[in-house]
């Protein structure tokens, strides 16, 4: 029997376990359709805010040694209301709507915009700058996280995912708080704060100076976070960070992730990366005699 690539992240059912991460190409329904046809199990939208954001001026992305990127696009996005209208026609693509905001009510307002859209889940991007506490992110403030998750859960029956990163607070505390507040799943991790300086012109390269490191360099860090979360909690996890091959994806499954997201790999291998990883996983499953993704989730914790 052919193994099945289908997976479930709690209530969320996917045909294929490789998702497009937030912020990557996530701007138009036509592109979502194309990505889905190309093998993505779901697409996560750019993180949407209540209002349109232009983001930072260029340079907003920089390629570092070792296959990674530092980006500071500044969460540019058309705003939740505009975006909701754009994806209303969607019937086919499993879309996860990523949301970013600094007060709990933002999330309520945004989720309401999507009432008429086919959305399989909302992902709360907790790496938004904190309005009150300079230098902190939303995810660094447990009280705020609790309120955001609670309001989101109260606004909709659609599953809510919290996306965590290495902020200034221990991400495991944020995970704890989110779980206590009723979160349905965790995506780990977001980019890691980083920077690059040009030695000739002697200035930070990104217009925002700092940016988020993604891609190959952060994979070992992301993998450890997934393993740590899955060792402590019984919560569905989506692994994210540096996946570019089927081996990377399988490592995340073995660490306890039920699905993975990828972004940077698209910048290197383009959209074909989805079918390549799907095929690799399928071959692996045949070889190991697995019938479903579930068979391998968390296996590395047994040893």
């Amino acid at each position, binding site marked *: 029997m052919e193994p099945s690539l289908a997976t479930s992240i709690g209530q969320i059912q996917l045909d294929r376990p490789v998702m497009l991460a937030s912020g990557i190409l996530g701007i138009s329904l036509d592109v979502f359709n194309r990505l889905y046809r190309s093998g993505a199990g779901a697409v996560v939208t750019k993180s949407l805010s209540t209002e349109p954001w232009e983001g930072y001026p*260029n340079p907003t992305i920089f390629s570092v040694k070792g296959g990674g990127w530092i980006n500071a696009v500044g969460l540019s996005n058309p705003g939740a209301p505009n975006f909701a209208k754009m994806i209303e026609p969607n019937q086919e693509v499993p879309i996860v709507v990523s949301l970013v905001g600094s007060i709990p009510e933002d999330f309520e307002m945004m989720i309401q915009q999507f009432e008429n859209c086919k959305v399989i889940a909302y992902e709360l991007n907790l790496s938004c700058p904190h309005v009150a506490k300079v230098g902190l992110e939303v995810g660094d403030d447990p009280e705020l996280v609790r309120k955001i998750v609670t309001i989101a859960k109260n606004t909709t029956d659609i599953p809510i995912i919290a996306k965590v990163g290495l902020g200034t607070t221990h991400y495991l505390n944020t995970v704890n708080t989110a779980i206590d507040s009723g979160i349905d799943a965790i995506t780990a991790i977001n980019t890691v704060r980083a920077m690059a300086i040009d030695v000739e012109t002697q200035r930070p390269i990104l217009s925002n100076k700092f940016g988020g490191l993604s891609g190959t360099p952060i994979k070992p860090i992301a993998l450890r976070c997934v393993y740590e979360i899955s060792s402590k909690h019984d919560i569905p996890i989506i692994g994210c960070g540096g996946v570019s091959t089927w081996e990377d994806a399988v490592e995340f499954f073995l660490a306890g992730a039920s699905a993975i997201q990828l972004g940077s790999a698209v910048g290197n291998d383009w959209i074909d990366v989805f079918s390549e990883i799907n095929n690799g996983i399928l071959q692996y499953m045949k070889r190991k005699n697995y019938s479903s993704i579930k068979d391998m989730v968390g296996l590395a914790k047994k040893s």
Partner: protein
Amino acid sequence: MQRNHNHTTIVTIEKVIDETPTVRTLIFSDDRMSNVLPGQFAMVWIPGVNELPMSVMISKEPGKAAFTVRKHGPASTGLFNVKEGQQIGIRGPYGNSFDLKEGKLLLVGGGTGLVPMMRLLSFVKSTDDVTVLIGAKSKDEVFFEDLANNMLKNNPHKVIVSTDDGSYGEKGFVTDLVEKLVNESNFDGVYACGPEIMMYKTVRSAHSRNMFVQASLERMMKCGVGICGSCCVGEDLVCRDGTVFDGDHLSSNKEFGHFYRNKAGILEKY
């Protein structure tokens, strides 16, 4: 290989040429950029200012390349103001390239859209019969006419300039000329780069007559590598799937010629 393209290289501007009061060509040395294909572009970092996509202009000297920039908003003005001896960062080349046919060719360029056309000219065979149309608003804004004539001096060729106000060359929109020419004779290849409406009309004129036509699209570009999504036109990403698209493909794209996305990613009408 891909990864190396993506690393920023610092180059020094060796020479600046004024093409018009608002257009300058900046020459620098870089082997990789000197050998790019017509249609390919670089992401150009003006330290402390911005980074923007630029078609790679040819240079007479081997091992050198150039950018020809029109002063417009903050980024392009920043590049326009770069002086000889100053450093800029470049990465790429990015994007695909024109598929050069043989025989009777029509090249249609407007403004800095002429840049990939000049590089395309450097690849034509001496037996090709080449017509170059240069569109501009007025006499002041015409450039590369002599360069085109010079590059084609051994070819059967025509270089026709049209200005909207008739202050130089033929009067009217360059797209009217295109319609006239494709109506009169069959071209083996039609190539366009310039304002979207110019490309849209050129593609329509040629494609409706089943001629092979390609256009190099421009969209807001942040990353240039197919990550950020800012350059999408329908389901295509200009930086990665393009910038060059076939008339066939473009004819079925609902956004080409009608919509572009602003910096927040909102679709706006041209």
